[in-house]
């Protein structure tokens, strides 16, 4: 068996000269310190993304993206296709775990200030991917064409439409018309399976290449400490095997969730029926949704909703541009402002999400 692999390697190597790459990979080391557990979350996010692509392609074989057939095709997948229930529930659960994992990854990078020089581009591509992930979530949520999704999309695109000047054209672009209809479904389907994956893959490629070239960042205090005290482990095979172990556990978690907490389908969307009680966005949008509810209708001359959206927009922009205005971290200094504002962001998100659930 091993002889076969060696033979194969030699054959490819003659043509592509893999030796340099192999040597490079063999020399890669991963720092080991009190915060090195967070290193795994990038890989877990990647794993979950791969899961989404695989299950997504499988679902594509049976899903029909028209107003008349979307709901029924998912019913079909859940009841008639062998293991269809499993693929669909895994896809829905993994979507949520993917966003969660990406958030943990993002916050751990933030708190360890790994975005600092020379890794600004890694952070930017990562942030863009995060926004795309939210886009994946929003567009994918509509695809079953059920009651809750229909109204959640209506509300969500309504909020987008509130922005001054650009809001209305954006809303019409998203909806494929004035209202949420079958045209919206077609559009969201296109975004979800073609546009977003394409852009995401490019960004992911850049992100991974940068990580490979630059290696893992260490927290500032570890970086500043003595070389002798800094422990490392080889990426191959140690860190890789550990990564795979983690991925295996996540896979098992998905299977357990799919069997014991199957993803609901609910009722088919009826364009003419009134909104049912209990519509809310997915948990990763909840904190923003809940915040908008607390803002009064009018703040001086600005409409409350617009104010809220702009505020989140500005916050998001500041967050994305943190490598450029956090000078201290670039110099290798501790920056408590960053740490505290990060903690505030985490607490804010957690508290408002809980409030949103309980209301």
């Amino acid at each position, binding site marked *: 068996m091993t002889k076969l692999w060696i033979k194969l390697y030699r054959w490819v190597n003659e043509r592509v000269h893999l030796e340099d790459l192999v040597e490079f990979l063999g020399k890669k080391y991963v720092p080991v310190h009190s915060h090195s557990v967070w290193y795994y979350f990038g890989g877990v996010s990647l794993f979950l993304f791969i899961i989404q692509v695989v299950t997504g392609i499988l679902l594509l074989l049976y899903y029909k993206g028209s107003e008349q057939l979307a709901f029924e095709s998912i019913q079909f997948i859940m009841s008639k296709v062998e293991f269809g229930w499993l693929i669909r529930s895994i896809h829905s659960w993994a979507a949520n775990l993917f966003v969660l994992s990406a958030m943990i990854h993002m916050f751990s990078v933030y708190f360890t200030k790994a975005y600092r020089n020379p890794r600004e581009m890694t952070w930017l591509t990562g942030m863009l991917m995060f926004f795309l992930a939210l886009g994946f979530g929003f567009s994918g949520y509509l695809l079953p064409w059920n009651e809750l999704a229909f109204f959640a999309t209506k509300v969500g695109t309504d909020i987008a439409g509130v922005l001054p000047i650009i809001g209305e054209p954006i809303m019409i672009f998203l909806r494929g018309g004035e209202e949420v209809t079958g045209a919206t479904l077609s559009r969201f389907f296109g975004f979800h399976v073609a546009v977003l994956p394409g852009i995401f893959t490019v960004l992911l490629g850049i992100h991974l290449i940068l990580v490979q070239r630059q290696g893992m960042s260490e927290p500032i205090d570890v970086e500043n400490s003595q070389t002798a005290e800094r422990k490392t482990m080889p990426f191959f095979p140690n860190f890789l095997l550990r990564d795979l172990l983690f991925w295996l556990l996540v896979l098992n978690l998905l299977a357990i969730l799919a069997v014991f907490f199957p993803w609901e389908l609910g009722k088919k969307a009826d*364009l003419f029926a009134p909104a049912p009680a209990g519509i809310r966005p997915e948990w990763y949008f909840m904190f923003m949704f809940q915040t908008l509810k607390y803002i009064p209708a009018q703040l001086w001359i600005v409409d409350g909703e617009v104010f809220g959206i702009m505020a989140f927009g500005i916050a998001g922009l500041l967050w994305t541009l943190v490598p450029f205005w956090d000078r201290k971290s670039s110099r290798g200094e501790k920056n408590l402002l960053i740490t505290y504002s990060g903690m505030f962001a985490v607490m804010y998100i957690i508290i408002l999400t809980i409030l949103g659930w309980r209301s």
Partner: protein
Amino acid sequence: MNEHNASPREQGKRDFLKYVLGGGLFAWVVSIVYPLLAYLTPPKQAEVEVNSVKAGKLSEIERDTGTIVRFGNKPVILVRTASGEMRAFSATCTHLDCTVQYQKDMGVIWCACHNGKYDLNGRNVSGPPPRPLDEFKVILQGEEVSISKNA
């Protein structure tokens, strides 16, 4: 993996571990591939059934006929009158929930269970039904006929 420092006992453990890992991996691969192949095999009912909202093409529905269409979990009767109009009603008889049908010779919607009759406006005109049939909206988008709940 450096083997020449290991004792025979350790070596034995290593070999056992290799087998367990290898065997486990193989079983794992099978547990992935089997459901995958089963999923890819088309089920007996090859396609999702056309039902509920979409009811077909206008040109395919003959005049003076009625068909039962499944609307979610409930049956709906779609009637095209002799003059060409399209009407849709709940096909659940308001008497004891049997499924009604269109009777061409009587020109009414008829329930076979206890001879209940409804006119082409859904009103109960004869027999035991106590209430008219709920009306549904028929929407024509070009040639496509679709049915929706009456808002």
